[in-house]
């Protein structure tokens, strides 16, 4: 019986051979690098692992400090070890990491989730259904809108391997994108999830059984990174649709990702090269940019605090945020997703591993729409079309730039983003500066009349429409409602969920009550050029 799990349904049967292939490739590559000499010699690789692990574990629990001592011993013994002993140690480490990373896929859990998730979410959204029987559960589709290049993506899923690359705002994203893939008639994907998420009681069960592989961001040494990349490469090469959040972690600021982590993304190109080398014909790896757009963000308060505390640096692990509290999650879903179209998942135009747009037939096109042969990008002018590290890293950087541009085209702005942006511009004008920290320190932000706020929203909407898609798009409701209705929608959301309102109405005026959250929701539009927001703060 088909579970609808697609290629991922075969994962468990292939798991052992995938892990073995990862180990074999890494060891072969490490052996060759060792023989070439220089920094690739195994003693340096093992010393790198020992150095990073000692640093990490020495700060930990008594048990971790014991493990640090063992790493210390290894580092000390390296100079006396024979090549065979070093190779055995590298093999042991690689094996350990590959087993730890490898995921699991349980078709029964997938089937269960596929059926229960819409029911569960619908019940959370409309609890009266419990009294009325399960009734019409199709309403969820109205809550989570799934749109964009769905036909193209579906066609490409049948032709090759998809690498889905969504924006990342919330720990809800994994569930939402999983739901969206299923609802869009797309196969499920395997994906890398931070090991810290496996400690979250709500999420870990799904993670463990739905193809997620574990990424331990605390491990910084090169051998572990090799395992992660090779694991991803083998999965894509074997046709397992994959999903990365290329921003790496949730956007702390609330803004769209501007710089992407390229390590795992580069595995798509390597998988394509390996498939060509194995004799495959045509393009077979397709990147799919996706924007996940919410009226409100579950963990907005924690994330923006983290961002403001460490601007420019991402703290990797937040152990205790809103997503780890069951009450907050259900409250969030009930109060925020209950609004029509409160979440929009938008699938962008698929891209090849070089960042070119791809049509439904799997053909790449240059920016002028001419058909091109992507295999020729691999031409090295002499020996053939094998991998070339420096060139391939640049290609992946180019792909990253194309994905960022796709995010900027496909982002969907909601009432909360529009209203927060106009409010923020107003606060900047009042403070006489644009430095966010000085604006955030304002003791007494002035209220803004509802009419002026609505006029600002109207002007902002016009500018976004006038950019013909280059500046993103408006969600259907915010595009169609009168501007004052958009203000009402935003204020309803702003007072519905967070521990204190973002902004609230007092008489005929609106008062920002949490400037940091106004800033957070405004940041969704922060990448837009100055022309998009010019003059919004000075409306009178």
């Amino acid at each position: 019986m088909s579970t609808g799990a697609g290629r991922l349904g075969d994962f468990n049967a292939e798991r052992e051979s995938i892990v073995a292939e990862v180990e074999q490739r890494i060891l072969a590559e490490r052996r060759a690098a060792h023989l070439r000499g220089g920094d690739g010699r195994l003693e340096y690789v093992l010393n790198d692992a020992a150095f990073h692990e000692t640093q990490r574990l020495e700060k930990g629990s008594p048990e971790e400090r014991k493990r640090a001592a063992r790493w210390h011993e290894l580092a000390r013994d390296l100079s006396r070890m024979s090549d065979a002993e070093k190779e055995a140690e590298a093999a042991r480490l690689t094996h350990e990491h590959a087993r730890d990373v490898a995921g699991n896929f349980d078709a029964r859990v997938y089937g269960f989730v596929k059926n229960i998730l819409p029911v569960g979410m619908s019940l959370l959204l409309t609890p009266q259904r419990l009294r009325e029987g399960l009734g019409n559960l199709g309403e969820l589709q109205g809550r989570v809108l799934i749109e964009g290049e769905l036909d193209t993506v579906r066609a490409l899923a049948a032709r090759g391997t998809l690498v889905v690359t969504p924006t990342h705002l919330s720990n809800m994203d994994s569930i939402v994108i999983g739901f969206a893939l299923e609802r869009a008639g797309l196969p499920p994907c395997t994906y890398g999830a931070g090991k810290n998420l496996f400690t979250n009681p709500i999420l870990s069960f799904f993670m463990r059984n739905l193809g997620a592989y574990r990424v331990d961001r605390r491990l910084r040494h090169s051998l572990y990174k090799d395992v992660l990349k090779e694991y991803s490469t083998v999965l894509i090469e074997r046709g397992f649709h994959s999903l990365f959040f290329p921003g790496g972690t949730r956007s702390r600021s609330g803004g769209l990702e501007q710089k992407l982590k390229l390590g795992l993304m580069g595995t798509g190109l390597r998988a394509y090269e390996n498939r060509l080398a194995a004799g495959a014909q045509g393009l077979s790896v397709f990147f799919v940019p996706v924007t996940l757009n919410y009226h409100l963000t579950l963990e907005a308060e924690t994330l923006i605090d983290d961002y403001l505390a460490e601007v420019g640096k991402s703290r990797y692990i937040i152990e205790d945020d809103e997503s780890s509290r069951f009450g907050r999650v259900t409250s969030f879903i009930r109060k925020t997703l209950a609004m029509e179209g409160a979440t929009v998942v938008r699938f962008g135009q698929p891209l090849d591993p070089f960042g070119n747009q791809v049509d439904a037939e799997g053909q790449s096109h240059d920016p002028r729409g001419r058909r091109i042969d992507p295999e020729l990008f691999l031409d090295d002018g002499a020996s053939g079309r094998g991998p070339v590290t420096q060139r391939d890293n640049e290609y992946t950087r180019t792909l990253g730039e194309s994905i960022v541009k796709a995010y900027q085209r496909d982002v969907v702005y909601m009432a909360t983003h529009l209203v927060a942006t106009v409010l923020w511009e107003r606060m900047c004008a009042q403070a006489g500066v644009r430095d966010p920290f000085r604006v955030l320190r304002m003791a007494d932000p002035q209220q803004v009349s509802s009419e002026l706020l609505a006029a600002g929203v109207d002007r902002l909407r016009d500018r976004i429409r006038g950019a013909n898609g280059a500046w993103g798009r408006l969600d259907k409701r915010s595009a169609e409602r009168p501007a004052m209705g958009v203000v009402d929608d935003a204020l309803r959301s702003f007072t519905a969920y967070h521990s204190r309102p973002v902004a609230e109405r007092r008489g005929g005026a609106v008062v920002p009550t949490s400037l940091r959250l106004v800033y957070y929701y405004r940041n969704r539009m922060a990448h837009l050029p100055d022309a998009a927001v010019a003059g919004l703060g000075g409306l009178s």
Partner: protein
Amino acid sequence: MMRGLGVVHAADVGGGAGAAALARALGEVAAATGQRVTSASSADVAALPELAAASRLIILATPAHTARVLARQLGDVVTGAHLIVHTARGLEPGSGMRVSEILREETCVLRVGILAGPLAVEGLGAGDPEACVVGSRYDDVITEAKRMLAGARLRVYGNHDIIGVELAAALGAALSFGVGIAAGLGFGRSTRAVMETRGLGELARLGVKLGGNERTFFGLSGVGARMAYGADDGDESFRYGEALAKGERPATEPEGVRAAREAGALAERHGVRTPLLLALRAMADGTRSPRDVGKELMVSVAVDE
């Protein structure tokens, strides 16, 4: 695909004459190192398919204002296997785009670069020892340009900072215009030196904001080009500045005046502090007089270097 060098140049008239001369000189250098060279002018579109078939590396010798048309024509014949290096010393009028960005918009070629630095057509022709820098994110481009062009007559250096090399090449001429103004006002060599060094510092600050590397501006494409083309009465931008300082405004605007406008516009758009470049733009536009600007700059706050 053959592994020869293709040289596509703007038509040998008007602003394209210099580009065509450079194309010829580079073609001769490559031929002297034993490379097979195929050339075509923008007026001869029919020759482009053959040129593309015979070449892996294509040099696009064009002023910035004709780059898009030429790039689009090339876009019809090139593939992802090609490498393109341009020689433009300017930004696209109106958009302010770098020519490598235009190439990325108009062709499928990803491996693009720029050839810049203190390269003089006359020097190449005379067999003087010359040097240039190829800016590209790709080792392939730098390596292939070296293979094609480097030899007894020309040293080819590489730089991965394509943004910095393009901006230094495109905007450096603004300083010739500025030095011309200083000369026209009767100021001596020390004033000109201040103009050059502070001006380059401002260009570097702007370049860093746009993603370039500060060091690039003090290498061949920045300081190197300034020392070669800089500021003497053999330079059109210098002469224009000199005339402007004396109250004249010649009819034809040289590249230094356009560069001053572009640099000022970029600095303003990206919020970079560049008082000298903004003053040059104001004088290029005629909104400020050279004498007023000179006084004003002297009383402005001098920040630490």
